[in-house]
């Protein structure tokens, strides 16, 4: 189903008080700095984030190479031009989602691979790729 370009439904959150432990706040609190955490940098919604390994060459021109680690955020509603994980013939596959003249496509970013037109019901978008990570030194 390709009805996913609609605005994501908003989940209304209630307002209610959380208990705040009383006590005099330490003036040093503002200056505490933790270590930089790559998780915080790369992951906005931990509950919706999954890691997937890229296998193949069809997204080379988008800068995604064989063996790259992909960060997928299922909390993002897919829109045209997003790089997505789609389910195609029972496999997870990485492509760029395109909409050309009303027709949806899963487009490869490598001249050697075709762009695949997809119908409303024959393809499910599994998640949106937010980041790719490539290791440059194997040691």
């Amino acid at each position: 189903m390709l009805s996913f370009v609609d605005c994501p439904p908003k989940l209304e959150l209630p307002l209610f008080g959380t208990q705040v432990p009383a006590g005099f706040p330490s003036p040093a609190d503002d200056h505490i700095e933790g270590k930089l955490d790559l998780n915080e940098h790369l992951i906005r919604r931990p509950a919706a984030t999954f890691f997937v390994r890229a296998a193949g060459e069809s997204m080379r021109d988008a800068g995604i190479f064989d063996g790259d680690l992909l960060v997928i955020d299922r909390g993002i509603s897919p829109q045209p031009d997003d790089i997505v994980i789609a389910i195609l013939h029972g496999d997870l596959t990485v492509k760029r989602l395109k909409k050309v003249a009303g027709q949806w496509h899963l487009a490869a970013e490598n001249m050697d691979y075709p762009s695949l037109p997809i119908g409303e019901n024959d393809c499910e978008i599994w998640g949106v790729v937010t980041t790719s990570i490539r290791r440059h030194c194997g040691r």
Partner: protein
Amino acid sequence: MATFALVDCNNFYASCERLFQPRLRERPVVVLSNNDGCVIARSNEAKVLGVAMGAPMFKIRKLVEEHDIAVCSSNYALYGDISERVMTVLGASAPSHEIYSIDECFLDLDRLAVPSLTEWCRVLRERTRRWTGIPVSVGVGPTKTLAKLANRLAKKSAKAGGVLDLVHHPAWIEAALRKTPVGDVWGVGRRWTVMLEERGIHTAHEFANAPDGWVRQRMGVVGLRTVHELRGFVCHALEDQPSPKQTTCCSRTFGAAIREKSQVHDAVMSFSERVAEKVRHAGQVAGAVQLFIRTDPFAQGAPQKSLSGSATFHRPTSDTREISAAVLRIFDRIWRAGYDWRKAGVLLLDIGMPGDSPASLFDRIEAPDDGLMSAIDQINARYGRGTARLGLAQKDGEWRMRRENLSPSFTTRWTDIPSARLT
């Protein structure tokens, strides 16, 4: 009026297996217990084919071959991780929540002011499915027992679309009660079902209208509470429940945030003791254990974290020593400093009667019972919970077991993450 929701994952284990293996969506799926013994979970298609819950593998082999049923060994690392994600989404949506089992969560929606609760539930349901990949059903009722009953009907009815709200449609309650067999009422076990049916009580509606005195005499105060809950009077608040089924959980929200590792450790160890005691009390054993700790999702501006991990027992157990040892290992593996922890819990999974699951060839069939656990239970029953406790958790033994169709640990091990094709 009090408003409780029960959110229940549809065919949870099978849904987890399908999440990273889309090909399984086209096949019926069953999941086996420890050591690949019996069926503990089925997809809808497998249910339709007549695969019975608890059926041993050798009995369904013919069905499996005939219908190309996908058979999976239980993968608690995967289920635990996905469960934690589902609970995080649910917990962040409602004013307060109670994780009832690995795939069920009660929400207290009392203070939730929204124009249409049904619509809110639909959005929650869609968000959970979208974010975690797991379809859920939502039942809403004025009591936990009615929420659970509404959930069962939400799942069964195509018209409901996975959501049934009995609080804003009180006229539906009677029909819902009539449609529910008494054995499917929360807290009514097999023995009570037989007893009630022998006396002509077949539906939840008939049960709800049974005279108080009779119920109290036959089923004690526990049964009476269930009847009152069916009539819409709250007897069970959040984190207060009649009886565990396939999983049991001990979780608590801490009075104040805890940063100290040793304090969280102590809390987690006491939960381990408590759940172990719970399964022993029910005469049951557990096949796996899951631990989670998380920060307060409503603490403004504070860094948020939710951690979990799980372990599978070589041989199902109810021994506090084995359970605590496993929880301790998980705890040391997942612990992260620098957060204000607000909630933690220990879940026991794959619960069954001792001897239910076939042992592996080289197994000691029975756990060596040195009588320590029953001695501790007796002391605690007499002098109060926590009087006798274990000191340090001990080392555990071998953890290898038969899991021939184990899916990869898609979300918890780097070498196992799924591949996406670029072809």
